[in-house]
């Protein structure tokens, strides 16, 4: 990566757009074991702390007329609760705490990742894949427990012409098993791409110190680009958390009501 910078910029510009994603031990261990305290630990811990701050301390007052922090907690609660109820139906509401957990974790981790020098835990496929697989397995198990083999009706499109149904069933099966892949890569890819692009522009920003001629144009442009992409990333941080949560609800609805 670093060797990509060639020509006259080679002197000073450093391109390490992917370094921000490195998992590094915090206390100088030279190898990352499963129990090692790393920057992953730090930023996940901060995620927990932020969630506690918003949903526990924020909602502490339980005032009849909510305070500002209480409003935020109630807004988040109402938003996800309504989404679960609307998408999965009344019987999906029992899964609300799980979906709320996923949503809050992804949302807060995404936003914390936007802080300068931060580590974005949700940009790692290992993290998102575990969550997506958990959703996939949970949905499959719930589907079979609630409906028995009737759950297989989810692959059998009864509204389609009979000849097409086997073909559609094959497509449905494939799409069903691809779900965890798309579910996880969508989130990790979005987070990674935006952060990497910001870093690339950040690498161009100090060009004015090296070559004033081009730098006078490139530096302001790259700073503007960083600002613009940062704004976009703020949007993406929320949207991806929302998308992950609503897809979870959609999959859950399939498990609860497999008949189309």
């Amino acid at each position: 990566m670093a060797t990509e910078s060639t020509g006259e910029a080679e002197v000073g510009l450093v391109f390490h757009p992917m370094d921000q994603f490195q998992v590094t031990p915090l206390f100088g261990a030279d190898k990352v074991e499963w129990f090692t305290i790393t920057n992953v630990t730090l930023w996940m811990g901060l995620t927990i702390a932020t969630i506690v701050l918003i949903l526990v301390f924020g909602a502490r007052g339980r005032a009849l007329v909510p305070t500002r922090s209480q409003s935020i907690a109630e807004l988040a609660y109402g938003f996800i609760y309504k989404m679960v109820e609307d998408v999965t139906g009344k019987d999906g509401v029992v899964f609300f705490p799980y979906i709320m957990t996923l949503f809050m974790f992804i949302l807060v981790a995404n936003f914390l990742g936007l802080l300068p020098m931060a580590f974005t835990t949700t940009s790692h496929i290992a993290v998102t894949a575990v969550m997506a697989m958990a959703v996939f397995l949970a949905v499959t198990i719930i589907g079979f427990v609630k409906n028995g083999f009737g759950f297989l009706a989810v692959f059998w499109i009864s509204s389609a012409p009979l000849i097409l149904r086997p073909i559609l069933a094959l497509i449905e099966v494939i799409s069903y098993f691809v779900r965890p892949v798309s579910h996880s890569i969508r989130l990790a890819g979005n987070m990674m791409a935006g952060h990497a692009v910001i870093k690339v522009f950040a690498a161009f920003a100090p060009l004015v110190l090296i070559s004033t001629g081009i730098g006078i144009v490139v530096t302001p442009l790259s700073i503007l680009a960083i600002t613009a992409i940062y704004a976009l990333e703020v949007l993406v941080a929320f949207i991806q958390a929302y998308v992950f949560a609503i897809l979870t609800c959609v999959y859950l609805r399939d498990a609860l009501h497999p008949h189309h």
Partner: protein
Amino acid sequence: MATQTQDTVTSAPGMPQLDFSTFSNQIFWLVLTLVVIYFVLSRIALPRISGALVERADTITHDLAEAEELKQRATEAEKAYEQSLTDARAEAQQINVAMRAEIQLQLDVELEKADLEISARTAEAGATLAEIRDSAVSSVKDVAKLTAKEIISAMGGKADAKTVMAAVTARMKG
């Protein structure tokens, strides 16, 4: 940013996301984090928030019902007020008529009484007047008799009281 040793280990694939040596670490901390968040949410945060929301909804419905009831009561009170106002008006009208009749009656009685009294007093006054006149006449007679007697005696005549008396009386009649 990263240490040199780390660089040589991990920058081989170019993407730290594909460095499988860190997966177990991330997965371990992720699972721990999710479990902690789940317990914090399901045990503390969500019951608290939903409790506040339910409480608020209850209060609002209760207040609305109470407001509705109060409104109802206000309407009723207004109706009752209107009713009592018409009643009072009718009663006042009635009382007015009755009072007028009574007063008229009383007035008639009083007038009659007053008339009677006036005629009685008039009669009485007439009697008194007659009496006074009579006594005045007799007084004048007495004075005239005495005076006549005195005059006669003063002139040197000797007058019998009886004759003088008779003469005066006869004179006065004439």
